[in-house]
């Protein structure tokens, strides 16, 4: 039997250790607080200095030497066009690559090589993609500092994201779906195109949106290819020129995008341009976060409807 004294000592010990639990719990909340407070400060700061500048004119004016008249028309149009190219390239390539790796590939050295590659590419800094595009697309292929170059660069950048999420979605489909389809005499491509791709749509869509929301905020690779920072005209509207060559004029047009416009305004010493930067940042954050939100919502909604 432990004596009274021993019991008291043990209780004290337990209290001491429980106190550490409490201290660590508080520390954890504090650390989380640092992150979340920073996010809040970022938003509030941007909203306070940016929202007064947000008006219809801000979206329909070109950049200007006078801060009060400057707008983001060429920037948001450029962003939308570049995203179109990125999506058109990255989505089919990413899905096809993922299907190959998940459904077709047998275990051999080529597949291993591709797998290692994708993991490594995801860790390559985005500015390196900019150098790739500068050396290869801009000068070797002669595409110039065009919408096409920017779109292709960002497509390569988000390809690993699209491939990885698509593979995860394909992997989560139970094996008996495939077996059932094969048992009915379906070919491999029929299984893939009529069953696996439709069923993994929620996952694929989430990956695509997350990839695009990353691409729309990327600045470094686009600056590296040498995109101009002051563009006071719009590229020709897509698919309106005289066919056949005129249809693709827009692809070769010079452009600017939202992040570059923000960079340009932030790096000017005049504080009234900083207000413009805040307003444009607000628009950009709103775009990326609503894309992220859409992805989370889609994943949640569509997953609920699937019952295996």
């Amino acid at each position, binding site marked *: 039997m432990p004596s009274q004294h021993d019991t008291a000592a043990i209780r004290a010990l337990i209290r001491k*250790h429980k106190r550490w*639990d409490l201290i*660590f*719990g508080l520390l*954890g*909340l504090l*650390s*989380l607080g*640092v*992150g*979340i407070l*920073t*996010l809040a400060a*970022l938003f509030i*700061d*941007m909203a306070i200095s940016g929202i007064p500048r947000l008006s219809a004119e801000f979206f329909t004016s070109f950049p200007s030497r006078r801060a009060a008249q400057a707008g983001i028309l060429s920037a948001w149009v450029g962003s939308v066009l570049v995203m179109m190219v990125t999506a058109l390239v990255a989505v*089919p*390539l990413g899905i*096809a*690559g993922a299907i*190959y*790796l998940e459904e077709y*590939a047998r275990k051999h050295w080529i597949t291993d090589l*591709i797998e290692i*590659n*994708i993991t490594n*590419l995801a*860790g*390559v*800094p985005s*500015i*390196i993609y*900019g*150098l*790739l595009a*500068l*050396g290869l697309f801009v000068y070797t292929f002669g595409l110039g500092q065009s919408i096409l170059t920017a779109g292709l660069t960002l497509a390569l950048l988000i*390809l690993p994201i699209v*491939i990885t999420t698509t593979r995860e979605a394909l992997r989560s489909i139970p094996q008996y779906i495939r077996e059932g389809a094969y048992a009915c005499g379906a*070919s491999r*491509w029929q299984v893939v195109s009529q069953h696996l791709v439709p069923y993994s749509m929620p996952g694929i869509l989430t990956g695509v949106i997350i990839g695009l929301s990353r691409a729309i*905020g990327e*600045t*470094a690779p686009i*600056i*590296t*290819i*040498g995109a101009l920072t002051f563009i006071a005209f719009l590229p020709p509207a897509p698919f309106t020129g005289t066919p056949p060559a005129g249809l693709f004029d827009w692809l070769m047009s010079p452009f600017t995008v939202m*992040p570059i416009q*923000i*960079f340009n305004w*932030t790096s000017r010493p005049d504080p009234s341009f*900083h207000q413009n*930067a805040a307003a444009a*940042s607000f628009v*950009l*954050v709103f775009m*990326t976060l609503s894309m*992220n939100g859409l992805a*989370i919502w889609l994943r949640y909604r569509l997953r609920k409807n699937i019952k295996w």
Partner: protein
Amino acid sequence: MASVTPQSLQGGSSAAANLAAYAQLKARRKRRERAIEVGLLLAACVSVLTTLGIVYVLLRESLSFFSHVSIWSFLTDSQWTPLFADAHFGIWVLMSGTITSSAVALLIAIPLGTIIAVYLSEFAGFRARETLKPLLELLSGVPTIIYGYFALLFVTPLLQKIYPDLPGFNVLSAGIVMGIMIIPYVSSLSEDAMRAVPMSLREGSYAMGATRFQTASKVVVPAAFSGIASAYILGISRAVGETMILAVAAGMQPTLSFNPLEPAATITSYIVQVALGDLPHGSVGYQTIFAAGLSLMVLTLSFNLAGHWLRRRFREAY
């Protein structure tokens, strides 16, 4: 398909003709399947081509750079003035900026990220985790240019209130903001690693009378060490490759110094600086950014390899 009509299957000839028609159909289907498979393989190979393209471009331009500048002076010169008449190419000047800014960022991201991961995995309830984690992950969803704006126009003035001599462009505020941006990369991966530790280990620890903190620090963290280490490595890679925050807030001034209170240029911000001006294609100045990029690539690649090795070496099998 069109060749196999009911007539061709039943009509006159014989079972042999039917079989021949089927064989033809099957062969055609096989050819189509084969073509699709090759197409998909080509799509998968784009990633390999990307890597080859990166290596090719960096090496091609760097080789012609190193035919002008010796590797020895590239690695040992203490000045970086590629655009001056008296040109010096000492990569350590840029490397010092990269190391200082990454060190500041990691001093923030690694402790905070680890604490948050332990808290979310071992202390927080289900509901708290499900709401706090996505909220924290928003931090990594904000474009980095916006963090640059925030570091320059919010954090630096704030730091100047505490330390009035701080220059308007400095590594400290850029590093701090970078660190906060990296927190989710460290915490998410570490938390995944901790959650993968089997429940039985925790139950064993609790059964011995350990508290939550003891279980977390003496059982869960050591068991998840390889995963946590690769989360750190990812954080380091992110910090080393981060560009816009430094280009906006750290001042792009190449000096060989490890003092975070001064402005500095990093490898990445130098590339941005050159890309913003218009250097003629093919000049030595133009080639410097590829040499800088190659150094950056070697740096991140060696971290990634270290991560692979750590994961292999310290993986706990259950």
